[in-house]
């Protein structure tokens, strides 16, 4: 039965921590109390994009977004907005008031591909997914030859969204062309990158898009079994995905002879234990095989020899979620977004000292400045932007005056800023470069799997040296040492983890060399963050 008013409650892990489930039940309870249940539908949806205003309630068709922080807010919302139709101004989440906000809003609304449905549909209901073009791309794919799908993907220019940016069509073509009795599809949902949560939001808000992408991959390369390798602590994602998979089986979209086409596909969820290196595709494969998650020597690459030594396509969640729309609407349509070398949109995770943290889907080639000021609302608490790390833990640091760099897969080559998995970490001027570097390198030292010497020992040495700096005992020679270690790791570490540590390290050293040098022989940390050992007298802030 249709009801005139719908309230979408954002139920994703962040919102749940803020009390979303409790708020939803409380809201339902109030609606019953006021006898409004026949008029108002309360539904769960994925992330509505931000968390700094509490749990978001989206009131439709009014299209008003409420930020709910406690049950008093719900009382007000029900009594004023629902009963009397008076908007409660102080609870309404405003668009960020930058001069360009109107434009920005249009851009995000119009250019959503991957997150088109997240926050609009009930992710637990397959029929709502179907209502918004769901499984139509797959149905169309079944009418095409696998080589035609590969060609469409190649023409679309889609590149992997997991970090490395490898052309997806090419990857699938390799696997399609290998003659093997058994092949596999793996969705990399490990998302170990600190600050990234885009994959989680896709799986929580629109899990069927991932399943549909994997189905198309399976049909294209000739695989009949798929795995989603997902972080164990992503409870909501795991729940929603499992539920979506069960529904897909029920509706005959997974299993034997799908849509009477003769194509069969099975899909299973595998839980990871949360080691960063397990996101590396070969370590992930080892982990699914039941071994400990250590990288393999490449080549051979997974498209040729992957899971159980069979040809295997490994793609990121966002990559799979992009595929159905490309098959349905065509390469040309996809290429109308983004830049020539990096078509389409990208889901960026905005974090750090921003007014508005959350995720935003923007066209490839959007500048760091726009992400921070237009979408992120600028720097929190009236402070100044000091630096930005783009692309995740293994990404580059850039200075505040470099933020006009457009982000796409070539921006690293052209401007020295990495796109990576799309994390934008803004750091304000109350932070010290030495301290930032130390924290990050401690992360890598912790996550190094220990398999190879350059990374295991290198990360430990880097941390030791940075600790010396943060205690006021750094030397110029140590700075040179850091570059040496970086060079060695880049060239001799066994896997992408160790090989990429030098990227953030040298970029912060290059750009903040004066700040590192100012720590040498000083009495106190020039920014007032590091706690130096007591020298001469008391040296404190």
């Amino acid at each position, binding site marked *: *039965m*249709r*009801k*005139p*008013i*719908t309230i*979408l409650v954002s139920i994703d892990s962040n919102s749940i921590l803020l009390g979303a489930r409790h708020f939803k039940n409380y809201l339902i309870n109030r609606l019953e109390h006021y006898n409004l249940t*026949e*008029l108002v*539908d309360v539904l769960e949806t994925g992330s509505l994009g931000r968390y700094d205003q509490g749990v978001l309630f989206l009131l*439709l*068709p*009014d*299209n008003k977004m409420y930020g709910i922080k406690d049950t008093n807010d719900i009382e007000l919302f029900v009594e004023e907005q*629902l*009963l*009397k*139709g*008076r908007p409660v101004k102080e609870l309404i989440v405003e668009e960020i008031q930058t001069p360009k906000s109107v434009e920005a809003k249009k851009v995000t609304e119009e250019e959503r591909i991957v997150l088109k449905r997240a926050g*609009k*549909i009930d992710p637990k209901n397959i*029929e*709502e997914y*179907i*209502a918004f*073009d*769901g*499984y*139509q791309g797959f*149905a169309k794919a079944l009418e095409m030859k696998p080589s035609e799908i590969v060609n469409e993907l190649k023409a679309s220019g889609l590149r992997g969204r997991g970090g490395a940016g490898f052309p997806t069509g090419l990857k699938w073509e390799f696997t399609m062309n290998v003659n093997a009795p058994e092949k596999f599809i793996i969705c990399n949902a490990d998302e170990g990158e600190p600050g990234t949560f885009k994959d989680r939001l896709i799986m929580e808000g629109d899990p069927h898009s991932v399943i549909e992408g994997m189905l198309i991959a399976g049909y294209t390369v000739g695989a009949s079994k798929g795995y989603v390798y997902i972080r164990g602590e992503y409870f909501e994602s795991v729940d929603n995905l499992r539920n979506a998979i069960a529904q897909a089986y*029920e*509706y*005959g*979209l997974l299993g034997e002879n799908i*849509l*009477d086409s003769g194509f069969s596909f099975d899909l299973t969820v595998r839980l990871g234990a949360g080691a960063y290196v397990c996101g590396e595709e070969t370590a992930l494969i080892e982990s699914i095989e039941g071994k400990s998650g250590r990288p393999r020597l490449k080549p051979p690459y997974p498209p040729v020899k992957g899971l159980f030594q069979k040809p295997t396509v490994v793609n990121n969640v966002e990559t799979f979620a992009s595929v159905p729309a490309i098959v349905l609407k065509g390469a040309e349509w996809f290429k109308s977004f983004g830049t020539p070398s990096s078509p389409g949109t990208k889901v960026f995770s905005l974090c750090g000292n921003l007014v508005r943290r959350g995720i935003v889907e923007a066209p490839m080639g959007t500048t760091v400045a726009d992400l921070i000021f237009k979408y992120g609302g600028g720097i929190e608490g009236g402070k100044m932007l000091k630096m930005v790390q783009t692309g995740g833990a293994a990404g580059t640091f850039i200075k505040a005056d470099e933020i006009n760099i457009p982000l796409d897969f070539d921006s690293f080559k052209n401007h020295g800023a990495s796109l990576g998995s799309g994390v934008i970490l803004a750091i304000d001027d109350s932070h010290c470069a030495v301290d930032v570097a130390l924290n990050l390198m401690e992360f890598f030292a912790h996550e190094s799997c220990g398999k190879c010497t350059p990374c295991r020992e290198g990360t430990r040495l880097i941390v030791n040296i940075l600790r010396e700096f943060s205690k006021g005992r750094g030397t110029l020679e140590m700075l040179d040492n850091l570059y040496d270690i970086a060079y060695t790791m880049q060239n001799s570490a066994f896997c992408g983890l160790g090989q990429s540590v030098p990227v953030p390290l040298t970029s912060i050293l290059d750009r903040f060399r004066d700040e590192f040098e100012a720590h040498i022989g000083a009495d106190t940390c020039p920014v007032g963050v590091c706690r130096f050992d007591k020298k001469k007298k008391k040296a404190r802030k």
Partner: protein
Amino acid sequence: MGKIKSLEELMKIKENTLKDLKMRDTDKRGKIVVAMGTCGIAAGAKETLKAIVDVLNEKGIEDIAVVQSGCFGLCDVEPTIEVRIGENEPIIYGHVTPNQAKRIIEQHVLEGKVVSDLVVKRGEL
């Protein structure tokens, strides 16, 4: 729900579900605003609202949003509703009982003819 066996069956689910989801759309052909001030509710605005929803459902009208608002300040003619179709000037109706609501939907919303005997104001409030 049995297994889907063809594209046609898939499209059928799509159509049916879309109908249900239309209610959430924000851009519609028009909207009916029901004044839910205290006096409106006292005069029966809730029943009117319910009737409007029922009639829209019955007639399968999906491109009209139903929105509640605060008091219009027209206490003596409650329940009041405002009908906005496209760019036309909004019409405010007074004394809208469930039966009158039905008339308004049939004549104004469906046929585009203003129900003159119930109009209390034309144009923006």
